[in-house]
Structures are given as structure tokens and as C-alpha cells.
């Protein structure tokens, strides 16, 4: 049995009297391709923020490779290989695509306190960045400031940034959000090329993408874990249909 890379146990978060996450337990192993779904307001983003260290949980523990990281800061978790991408592309608008990837690689290698070295002459950096650009099909846009980049390309850069950090566990928060349906296959192609031993948890609304990508699906509703299983099991589960149809009927009413 392989040990879990990420173990979440009894994770809860209250905002005052409001319980947005309650008693969530799950684990991710190397090579997992897992999707977390749930209707709006189910607490998916809160869950991501708890796991990545943006929010402190009210109760529960988070272990990364067997070590308790519950009290570590967000950046300390990143340095241990727990990486996330953002739902809305959060990039440095005036910096070019290349500069983003250079910064990510330099952060990973902890070389960002070199004051008198030249970024252009860091050994191996240019080659690694070129490789990442190529893998995501961003070579032609390398020297474009991100602010003028097409949205789909910004999403690809988000994934490239996460990869540049050489993650062990990768959390993708709606990687295809805002991308036209006709272009979401490019995101999926990029996801298919992720390193095989990586544990991936994807939060996504686009069910096509979820069913094509995930081998295990976890359903979250009202801050609780409703059920988990393969795509067929989830599609057939009446409780999942209730949660989705119930909330959708409510929205449309």
C-alpha cells in the first residue's frame, strides 16, 4: 500500500456561527486524479484555502507526506510541494510570461535572495523555462506582458507556474473557468501531460472536464463530504442528483 501524499482528517471551519466546512476527511495518493465537485456554496473554495494554508481550520489536521502541516504558513506548504492554481487567473499583469516562469523556478530553487546575479545568466534557468513554455504551447507568447494575453493562455500559464514549482500535490481550482468551451480541450491536453506520479485534486464545474480527467470524484454539499466514487458511481448516485437538481431548481425558480 502506498502512503498517502496528502491526508486531511476531520477538517472543519466555522465563520462565527456559520459552519462552512465540517468534518471533511480525504486522502490523495501519488498518481491520483481526483475531482472535487459540488453546487455553488458547497464550500469548495474554503476547503482549498484550508488545505493550502490561506485560512486556519477550526478543527482537524492536514498531513503532507505523513508530516503535520496544519499550522504551517501557506508559503511553507508550497515549499514542501503542496501547490495550487487559482480560480481566477492571478498573475503579475505587467510581467511577461517568461518572467513568471523564471520567478517560479527561482522560488523553487530558493535563489531569490541573490541580489547581484543576473536572471538572464542563471545557469540552467533559460533551458528549464523554455521547456515549460514549450510544454504548455506558450513559446510564441513568451515575451508578452501577461496583461495583454488571451484568457485561455493565462489559464495555461497558471498550470505552467504550478508545474514549475515541481509539486507533489497539485490543487487546481477551476482550471477551465472562463475559458470558452471550444478551447477547454487545450486545458485538458495540458492536464493530460502532468507528471504521472503527481497527486492532483481538481475543483471544477465543467462536468465534461471532470468526467474525462478524474478517476475518483468527491462530492461536497453544504460543507460536508456527501460521497465519493468513480464517475459512473457518482453519475448514478441519487443523492448527487438531489443536491444538484435541488439547488438548480432552486436557482431557476
Amino acid at each position: 500500500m502506498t502512503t498517502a501524499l496528502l491526508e486531511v482528517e476531520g477538517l472543519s471551519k466555522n465563520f462565527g456561527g456559520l459552519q462552512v466546512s465540517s468534518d471533511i476527511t480525504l486522502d490523495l495518493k501519488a498518481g491520483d486524479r481526483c475531482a472535487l465537485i459540488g453546487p455553488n456554496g458547497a464550500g469548495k473554495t474554503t476547503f482549498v484555502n484550508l488545505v493550502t494554508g490561506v485560512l486556519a481550520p477550526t478543527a482537524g489536521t492536514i498531513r503532507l507526506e505523513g508530516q503535520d502541516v496544519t499550522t504551517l504558513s501557506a508559503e511553507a506548504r508550497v515549499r514542501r510541494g503542496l501547490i495550487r492554481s487559482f480560480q481566477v487567473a492571478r498573475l503579475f499583469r505587467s510581467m511577461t510570461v517568461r518572467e513568471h516562469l523564471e520567478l517560479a523556478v527561482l522560488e523553487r530553487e530558493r535563489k531569490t535572495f541573490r541580489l547581484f546575479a543576473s536572471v538572464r545568466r542563471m545557469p540552467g534557468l533559460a533551458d528549464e523555462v523554455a521547456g515549460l513554455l514549450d510544454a504548455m504551447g506558450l513559446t510564441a507568447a513568451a515575451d508578452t506582458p501577461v496583461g495583454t494575453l488571451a484568457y485561455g493562455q493565462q489559464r495555461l500559464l497558471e498550470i505552467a507556474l504550478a508545474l514549475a514549482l515541481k509539486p507533489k500535490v497539485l490543487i487546481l481550482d477551476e482550471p477551465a473557468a472562463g475559458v470558452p468551451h471550444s478551447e477547454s480541450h487545450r486545458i485538458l491536453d495540458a492536464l493530460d501531460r502532468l507528471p504521472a506520479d503527481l497527486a492532483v485534486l481538481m475543483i471544477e464545474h465543467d462536468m465534461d472536464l471532470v468526467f474525462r480527467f478524474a478517476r475518483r470524484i468527491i462530492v461536497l454539499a453544504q460543507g460536508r463530504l456527501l460521497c465519493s466514487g468513480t464517475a459512473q458511481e457518482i453519475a448514478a448516485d441519487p443523492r448527487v442528483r438531489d443536491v444538484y437538481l435541488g439547488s438548480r431548481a432552486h436557482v431557476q425558480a
Partner: protein
Amino acid sequence: MSAVATDRTRRETAGRRLRRAALDGAAVPVMAVLGLAAFWLFPNDLGLMTRIAATALYVLSLDLVLGFGGIATLGQAAMFGTGAYAAGIAAVNLVDEPITLLAIGGVAGGLIALVTGALILHARGLTLLMLTIAVVQIVQEVANKARDWTGGSDGLSGIDPAPVLGLFRFDLYGRTSYLFALAVLIVGYLVARRIVRSPFGLACRGVKEDPLRVAALGGSPKRYLVALYAVAGVFAGVAGALTAVTSGIVGLDSASFSWSAEALVMLVLGGTGRLYGAVIGTVAFMTIHHILASSDPFHWMLFIGLFLMAIVLFAPGGITSVLNGAGIERVFHRMKGGRA
């Protein structure tokens, strides 16, 4: 149609970037040539020009902090003043070798920035602005109270540095002072440019745009900001020491709120985040200041104000944005009736 438009904007930004890169590369040779030309052309204004060179280094330190780290500060004179007093006190009591004095000023400026930065840089925006003002006021008051060391409101005098490198004596006409200040400015500029292009500089630009995103890449935004503040403090301290060494006196106004604010005005005038903007802004502001103040001693402040308003209205990116072409394009665009 939209593809054509994107293509055009891409070409325009590429052209602008090329011009910017050209300005970036030309900055040092241009600075050296113009600086030396001014030495021959205006032999009677060497005192003013020396002050301009030292001030440019000071404004450069503010550009590192504000233009590359996004730290809003009205307290940069705390580092300038500390460097000036440290060098001045050392010159009166300990050593008279000018380059050693600059080093003392740099260390003092860097240390005060490191300590105060670690205390205040958790704040951002207006809160941080208030805290930087508090720091410069405290430094000024300490200098005022420590009369035995600083001379208090009378100022610190009696700074009499030895010849530069043991060769070039500080003369009555200020020739050595000016050339020394110009050389220090150029060296400081080169070092600053090196830092801006380093991995550290890249990380600081990231923090300026989105600190949380930097944290998501594994960096600690506050550590970058404190380090940058300290590095810029070294530059400001050297600038203060340079002013002390070349002018022979240090006054309380070197650690004042208004001297901090003036640096900000000069930087905004030149344009932030480009380094050469700091130099251009300082030269423009102090030259105009000098000409107006001598031709119309009563109303010069008004004209300086009008000039600043014109810059903010027509070239919000400062003088350098006009040189880059962005400002001109904006004005043309407006004249054609389009929205900027």
C-alpha cells in the same frame, strides 16, 4: 477584426519596449557624457550640480522602494538623514577618508531601514504611509535632541574630508566634489540596475503586483519587502553621506518629512519603476527650482506647482513616459477625440 487590433497593439507595445530597452542601455553613457559636459559648460553652478547628483542617488533609492517594491513611503529621508549624520559624526570624530565615510553612511542607512522596516512593513497603503512619516519624525527629533553629537538645530559642521583616493583634494570651486558625486551616482546607478535585474529584483516586482501570488509560489512577501527597504536604505544612506562629504554640513532638514515628500515629487515627475526616471526627475525638478527661484523669488512655488500639474495631466507616467512614447501617443489620441 479583433485579431488585427490585437496584432496592432502587440506591435505598438513591442515598439515601446524597444524604445524603453534603448533608453535603459543608453542611460549610463548619456549620464556620464551629459554630466561631464555640464562640468565644462556650467563651471559656476558646480555646487548646485553636486547637490543634484547626490539627490538623484537619494531619489533612486526611493524608486527602488516604490517603483520596484510598491512600498508607499513618505519617510525615505530617515535613511538619508541617518546616513548624512553618521558620515558627518564619523568625519568630525574618527576618519576623514571620503569613501570610508560613504560606506559608514550606507551601513547606517541600511541598518535603520532594516530595523524600522521589520517593524512597519506588515502594514500597507495609508497605514504604512503614516508609519513611515512617524519614523522620519522620530529620527529628526533624535537628531535635534542629540545636540552634542549632531549640533541640533545649528547643524553639524566641521566636516573636512581628506582627498579622494588620497589624490584629489576637495577644492574651493567644488570641481572635485562634483566629479566625485557624479562618479558615485553612476556607480550607484549601475549597482541598482544590477539588483533590479537580479532574481531578487524579479521577486520584488512580483510582490509589488500581488503579494499573495508570490506566497503561493513559496516566497515570503514581507521578507522581500524588508530586504528591499534595507537595500534602498543603503543607497539613501550613501546619498546622505555624499551630501555631507561634498557640502561639509548636515542640517536637521536632511531628515525631514518635507525632504521625503520632495523626493517623491521628483520621482513622480521623472517616472517610477525605471531608475533613469529618478535621475531625470531630479535634474528637471532641481534645475527648474533653481531657475525659477532666482528669477522670481516670490512666486516660484506657484510655477513649480503648475508644472507638476501639467505633468500629471498630460504625462501621468512622468517625463520618461514621454520619452518612451506612451505619453505622446496618449496626447495625440486625446486630440483626435478618442478616449485615453
